């Protein structure tokens, strides 16, 4: 993030953000003559002459490498069709499981209606291809699964996972955040799971504010959270996290 971070303002579609020769249109904007015009509702941000709109709402855009959480809708002869909330279904081929699965035992790995954590390893004309080969991926056995707006996911994860770490420290839960907005929380006690969910919903409400990490720590302290220093949970998602677009 550049030193000269400009104050973020809310813009609506069709609104001119800046006018001038040197500006470049980034995400959510279009160049019209000398004007950079927003086509999304969100926070306009300019840095090093690149102007973009950080959306506060809107549909998930799948990208290669994304961790996603989806539901199995169909089992074919060579894999599972997974709904991850995009127009096309995603497909998990039988070769992309960690252990060998014979073709007549597909439903032992995952049945229709089961939910899983997967990673997008390919996007072609045919659709989205998933894998569950890495650690931390696979069928979800228990816990709470709920959805937030996919645009708020970067704030829930935080810079290099900093926000997620705070939630884990205060709730002792395993938390997996799908880039498509679905979140899986698993803890020893249901109270902990619900505490983590409330924290995440708090973050989504304040997602556009600065200094969010401090606010969340304050929120935890105000709500009776106790920071646990001994990390008994596995750091299994760190290397798979996407980089952040916002700082704290």
């Amino acid at each position, binding site marked *: 993030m550049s030193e000269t971070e400009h104050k973020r303002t809310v813009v609506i579609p069709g609104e001119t953000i800046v006018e001038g020769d040197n500006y470049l249109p980034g995400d959510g904007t279009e160049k019209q003559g000398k004007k950079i015009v927003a086509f999304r509702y969100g926070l306009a941000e300019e840095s090093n002459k690149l102007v973009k709109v950080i959306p506060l709402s809107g549909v998930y855009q799948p990208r290669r490498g994304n961790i996603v959480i989806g539901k199995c809708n169909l089992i074919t002869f060579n894999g599972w069709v997974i709904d991850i909330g*995009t127009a096309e279904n995603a497909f998990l081929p039988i070769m992309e499981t960690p252990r060998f699965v014979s073709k007549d035992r597909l439903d032992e790995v995952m049945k229709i209606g089961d939910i899983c954590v997967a990673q997008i390893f390919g996007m072609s004309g045919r659709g989205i291809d998933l894998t569950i080969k890495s650690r931390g991926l696979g069928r979800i056995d228990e816990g709470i699964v709920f959805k937030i707006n996919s645009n708020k996911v970067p704030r829930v994860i935080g810079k290099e996972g900093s926000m997620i770490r705070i939630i884990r420290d205060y709730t002792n839960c395993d938390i997996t955040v799908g880039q498509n907005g679905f979140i899986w929380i698993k803890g020893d006690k249901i109270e902990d799971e619900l505490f983590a969910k409330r924290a995440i919903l708090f973050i989504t409400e304040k997602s556009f504010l600065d200094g969010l990490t401090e606010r969340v720590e304050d929120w935890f302290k105000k709500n009776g959270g106790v920071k646990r220093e001994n990390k008994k949970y596995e750091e299994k998602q760190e290397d798979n996290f996407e980089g952040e677009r916002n700082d704290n």
Partner: protein
Amino acid sequence: MGGDEIEITPEVTAERIRKYLEQEKRFDGRKLDEFRDIIIEEDVSKKAEGSVRVKLGKTEVLVGIKMDVAAPYPDPPNKGNLMVTAEFLPLSSSRIELGPPKFDSIEVGRIIDRGIRESKLIDLEKLCIIEGEKVWTVFIDIYTINDDGNILDAAGIGAVAALKLAKIPKYDTEKKKVLYGEYEGKMPLRKMNPFAITVHKIGKHLILDPTREEEDVSETRITVGSSDGVIYSLQKGNSSYFSVEEIEESFKIVEKAWKELFKKVEAQLK
């Protein structure tokens, strides 16, 4: 936003809801027989003879009363008519398909109708204009605005509240026209509050006022229309079963809840 199917409460969360209930707890911290916060706004639609907005937590319904003059049924010829309709608007939930009324909205309309009709909350005889020729028809129309579970009970609260606010338009007997906007008198009501209260069964537990997630997990339900300990209408819905003991316990739960609901609604209606 995408993936309609995945939005129906996933089985993992359903498991958690059941597990939590075993400890007599719910996700939002409520007791099993506790209603969410109720907010009633009056006169939300000026051209209605009476109208309310009811918010039960995040669930929101609009209920409006309209009146018109028509011929009575031949039996009896001196009573006004009642018609209750419910519309599940597509704007209230991503799950609603477009098209003619599905079972849910028809069921809500009929259950609320029976509760109001059988309790005789409305003194229909006072709605007779000319015996055998002209009587008032009371239309109660229910619209869902946001569905976060328990539309039925919210609709019932709305119907009773809207009736309490309703006024009767003037009727020009010569021109045989209703003069909407000009009123004479209030809706003739008996002193009672026939709320519909639905008890849901999840595993071995009976709960009231489920959120959307909880309603998805509900195995069976029983709606009781009652006022001050007297039951006027009853309907069991969904498959699965209640034991006789569970039915008896449901009646106790409803009686207790009715008293609290009565207090909350009275407070809201000034």
